[in-house]
C-alpha cells in the first residue's frame, strides 16, 4: 500500500512562502493498493493536483469523505476526472439521519456556490453512504467508524496484506474527558487506530490554542501524541495543520513535542507530497 499526502492543511487553504514545506492545500490523501486500487481520502484543495496525475488508465476512483465540512470537499469541483464521461467515480460519505449524501453535496455543487451542478458532472458517478462496518474496495479492506467531531464524521482504517493505515484528520477525542487519554474503550477512534502501522491524525492546535477552541472538533499536538501512544501506533503523521501555522512554527511545535514525549512510535509531521510505503 502506498500512501501520499496531497493536502495537509486544516480548515482553510493557506498557500504562501511561509507554508511551502508543510503545504497549503487542505486534506487529501491518495491510497494505492498493490493491485492498483485507488482510494482517495477527502477532497480538500489538494485533490486538484492529484487529479492532474490520474490518466485514463485509472478505471475506477473511490473517494472516501470523512465528513462534509468545506475544507474536505472544496476540491471536488476542481477534480478533473469528474469531467471525463467514461470515468467511474464512487463517492462515499458518512450517513446522516436527515438528507442523503447527494442532497448534502449539492449544497456546495450548485449555484450560487458553484456553477456546475453535481447532477451535470459528465463522469459515471455513484454516491454511497459509508457502511459503519468493514467493506472492501479492490484489494483494500476498509473499516469506517463515527468519531468525535461536530456533525456526522467518520474515520477510516484501511488494511491490505497485514499492513494498515488509519485516517483521522478531524478528531477531538479529548472533548469532555476529565483526564486524557481515557480508558481505551471510552476513547473515540481507539479501535480504528489500535496498533496501526501508520496513523494520520488531526494535530491542529497548540495546547494554548486548544483551550480557546474546545468543542471545535480538533486536537492539539500533545493530545495527538497521547492518543497515538495509547493506541500503540507504529508511526504517527500529525496532520490538518492550523492555517496560521507557518513552517517555522510547525518545526518548533514538533521538535518540542518530540522532546516532551517518550514516544514509542515514529513521529513524522505531515508534509504535502510525502509518501509512505506500507508493506512490500
Amino acid at each position, binding site marked *: 500500500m502506498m500512501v501520499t499526502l496531497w493536502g495537509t492543511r486544516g480548515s482553510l487553504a493557506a498557500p504562501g512562502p511561509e507554508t511551502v514545506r508543510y503545504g497549503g492545500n487542505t486534506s487529501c490523501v491518495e491510497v494505492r493498493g498493490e493491485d492498483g486500487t485507488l482510494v482517495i481520502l477527502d477532497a480538500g484543495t489538494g485533490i486538484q493536483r492529484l487529479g492532474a496525475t490520474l490518466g485514463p488508465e485509472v478505471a475506477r476512483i473511490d473517494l472516501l469523505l470523512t465528513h462534509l465540512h468545506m475544507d474536505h470537499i472544496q476540491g471536488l469541483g476542481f477534480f478533473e476526472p469528474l469531467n471525463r464521461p467514461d470515468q467511474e467515480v464512487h463517492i462515499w460519505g458518512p450517513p446522516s439521519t436527515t438528507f442523503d449524501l447527494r442532497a448534502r453535496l449539492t449544497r456546495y455543487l450548485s449555484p450560487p456556490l458553484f456553477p456546475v451542478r453535481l447532477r451535470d458532472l459528465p463522469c459515471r458517478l455513484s454516491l454511497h453512504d459509508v457502511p459503519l462496518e468493514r467493506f472492501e474496495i479492490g484489494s483494500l479492506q476498509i473499516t469506517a467508524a*463515527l468519531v468525535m467531531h461536530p456533525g456526522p464524521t467518520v474515520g477510516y482504517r484501511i488494511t491490505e496484506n497485514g499492513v494498515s493505515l488509519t485516517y483521522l484528520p478531524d478528531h477531538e477525542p479529548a472533548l469532555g474527558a476529565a483526564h486524557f487519554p481515557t480508558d481505551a474503550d471510552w*476513547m473515540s477512534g481507539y479501535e480504528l487506530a489500535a496498533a496501526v502501522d501508520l496513523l494520520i491524525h488531526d494535530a491542529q492546535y497548540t495546547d494554548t490554542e486548544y483551550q480557546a477552541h474546545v468543542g471545535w472538533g480538533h486536537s492539539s499536538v500533545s493530545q495527538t501524541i497521547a492518543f497515538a501512544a495509547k493506541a500503540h501506533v507504529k508511526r504517527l503523521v500529525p496532520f490538518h495543520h492550523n492555517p496560521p501555522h507557518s513552517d517555522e512554527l510547525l518545526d518548533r511545535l514538533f521538535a518540542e513535542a518530540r522532546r516532551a514525549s517518550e514516544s514509542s512510535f515514529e513521529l513524522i509531521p505531515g508534509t504535502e507530497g510525502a509518501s509512505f510505503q506500507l508493506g512490500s
Partner: protein
Amino acid sequence: MPQQAIEVILMRQLATYLAMPIFLVDPTGKLLFYNEPAEVLLGHRYEETGEMPLAEWAQIFQPTSEDGLPLPPEALPLVIALQQRRAAHLAFQIRGLDGVHRKIEVTAFPLEGQGGRYLGAVAIFWEVDDP
C-alpha cells in the same frame, strides 16, 4: 474490551458535566455508567459499583411503587425504554446502597445512533420531596 460507540461516549461525557442524575445502559441493559449526582441518590460510587447486568441493577436498589409494593424490572422506565424503545416515566421509591429510602421520579429514553444503530438507553432521575 471493545470501544463504545461514539454516541455512548458523548452521552457519558455529557453526563459527567450535568448536575442531574443520569444512568446509562447498553442494549443488553448492562449498566455502563452513572454520574456523581446519581451516586448521591443511589448511595454508592460508580467506581465501586462498576458495570452490572440489568437483572442486578433492577433489583439492587429495591424499587417499590408509591404504595410500597415491589416493582418488577419490566415496570421500570429504563427497562421500558430499553425493551420497548420508547420514552417512559414513573415515580417510585428506591433504597440506596447507603440504606436510605428515597422517592424519585425517572424519565428514560432509548438511544438510537447514526445509521439506525440501537445503542442502549438513558435514565434521568431526581429526588422528589414529599409535600
